[in-house]
């Protein structure tokens, strides 16, 4: 009786088929369609002309495209070397039973929940050259010579557009790492304490190594997040000034919807998929966890 109930073919079909259909149609098939489009010279009207891998050749020779890749690599590097260490520091402090643990955890996480569009608008006001919060603060502390048009000029635009992402996602990585640190058995810390290990030593020799699985997840998330970043740049700078903040996803968007080069835009989207896939595989291969 059990078997007939739990291998009821009609029920399985009803439970699985709708999901599978919508998933394949919207998520899987478009990958292949994009790959096909990427081999065309096509403006969306009529039939495109097949041009082989020409779009990919262009992608890796065009200085604007290469610059966008460079920017997303810089975003990834900044995430790895600034955002993750800061998050780790906060997570380790909060996980060590400090007073107000729950309060800080809740507060640090708030920016994660806010729409990136709102965050981009908010930071564009903070950076505003004439009335923005940042310049006002600098003037109030006597550093008015540093006040400038943060998003409007080439030398500061990229770093200025990275800071909101850093600010937004620190809480997220902190939370994941905090959960990882908290799941380590307390006995190990007791033992370290008895052996007389200092807090810093315990963190480096015990806590961080045991947090490897969660650190790996954070690494994957931050790198992929940097490769996929779209909303923030699109709203904050639109890729400007003079393409200094352009990333592959905004380049893809303008290529498709502003210059109507559907084939080339699709090549960029395929590039983004492959980039994310390859990075995930590399990280999984080189950082082994149980």
């Amino acid at each position, binding site marked *: 009786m059990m078997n007939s109930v739990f291998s009821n073919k009609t029920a*399985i079909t009803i*439970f699985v088929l709708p999901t*599978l259909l919508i998933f394949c149609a919207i998520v899987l098939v478009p990958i292949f369609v994009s790959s096909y489009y990427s081999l065309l010279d096509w403006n969306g009207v009529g039939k495109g002309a097949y041009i082989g891998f020409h779009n990919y050749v262009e992608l890796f020779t065009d200085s604007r495209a290469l610059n966008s890749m460079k920017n997303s690599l810089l975003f990834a590097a900044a995430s790895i070397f600034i955002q993750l260490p800061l998050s780790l520091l906060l997570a380790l402090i909060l996980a060590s039973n400090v007073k107000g643990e729950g309060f800080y955890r809740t507060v640090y996480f708030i920016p994660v929940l806010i*729409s990136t569009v709102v965050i981009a608008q908010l930071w564009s006001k903070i950076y505003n050259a004439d009335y923005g919060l940042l310049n006002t603060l600098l003037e109030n502390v006597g550093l008015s010579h540093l006040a400038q048009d943060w998003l409007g000029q080439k030398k500061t635009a990229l770093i200025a557009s990275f800071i909101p992402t850093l600010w937004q996602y620190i809480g997220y990585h902190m939370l994941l790492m905090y959960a990882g640190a908290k799941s380590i058995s307390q006995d190990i810390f007791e033992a370290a304490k008895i052996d007389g290990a200092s807090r810093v030593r315990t963190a480096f020799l015990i806590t961080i190594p045991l947090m490897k699985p969660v650190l790996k997840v954070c690494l994957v998330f931050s790198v992929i997040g940097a490769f996929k970043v779209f909303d923030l740049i699109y709203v904050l700078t639109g890729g400007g000034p003079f393409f200094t903040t352009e990333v592959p996803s905004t380049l893809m968007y303008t290529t*498709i919807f502003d210059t109507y080069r559907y084939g080339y835009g699709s090549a960029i989207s*395929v590039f983004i998929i492959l980039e994310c896939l390859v990075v995930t595989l590399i990280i999984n291969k080189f950082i082994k966890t149980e």
Partner: protein
Amino acid sequence: MSTAEMALPKRTIPIGTILLQAFLILVAITQIYPLIWLAFFSLKDNSEIFSGDVANLPKQFLWSNYAKALSEGHVLTYFFNSVFVTAVSIILVLILSSMTGYAITRMNWKLSGLTLTIILLGMMVPIHAALLPLFMVLKNLGLLNSYWSLIIPYVAFGIPMAVFILGSFFRGVPRELEEAAVIDGCGIYRTFFSIILPLVRPAISTVAIFTFLSCWNELMFAVTFINKESMQTLTVGMMSMVGTYITQWGIIGAGLMITTIPTIIIYLLLNKQVQKSMIAGAVKG
């Protein structure tokens, strides 16, 4: 020895504790102050904002900015659109992925493993991949500028994570419960809907929160598939509103606050559950 151990922390910890707390408070201010500043300027008028003291409390609270944002700025329309699209997406994601997650983890059929692998692969696919193909299909079907043009992709891209989370909860349900239900004469549908589903309520709220955040905040599809103002969601509406009210910061600020407040309320009410769901979303191995 025990007294020494007791006394030691009392003497040494205060300075360290004070520094640590000062650092934590500084970080808390950094994380929160921009939002408080947003709340302030949403209540100011232009002359106050542009007079240079952008950092201070409003002299008088201009609630009319909110009224203007809601009426003239169409924020009420955007708000309704976002609520509708998000709510329908959450419901569909929950129905589809709970049924599929159950069939995959608890029912016996040959292709269950393969189906799970395929669906979980979807967690790695960035939405960029689908943008142009979906745009072409929706355009050809005349579905651009409809709620479905957002709901269908949101549901499809929400499914992998939802199946993953719900599936791992279903795995934890004891077999005996299902067997008892069947012995008592329940068919598969009743066993699933009235016995098993209520047991995985925490997973359902986790998925609901996760889906809420991704739909409520989504921009790329929303800006591409919808250009009619009456159909725009908050994220897109906010962008066009900033263009219209470029010099009226107060109204823009009010619009941004209206976009943000629901999320903050949900977070403050369900803060533990929200944090748990974000962790569950990450620990996919």
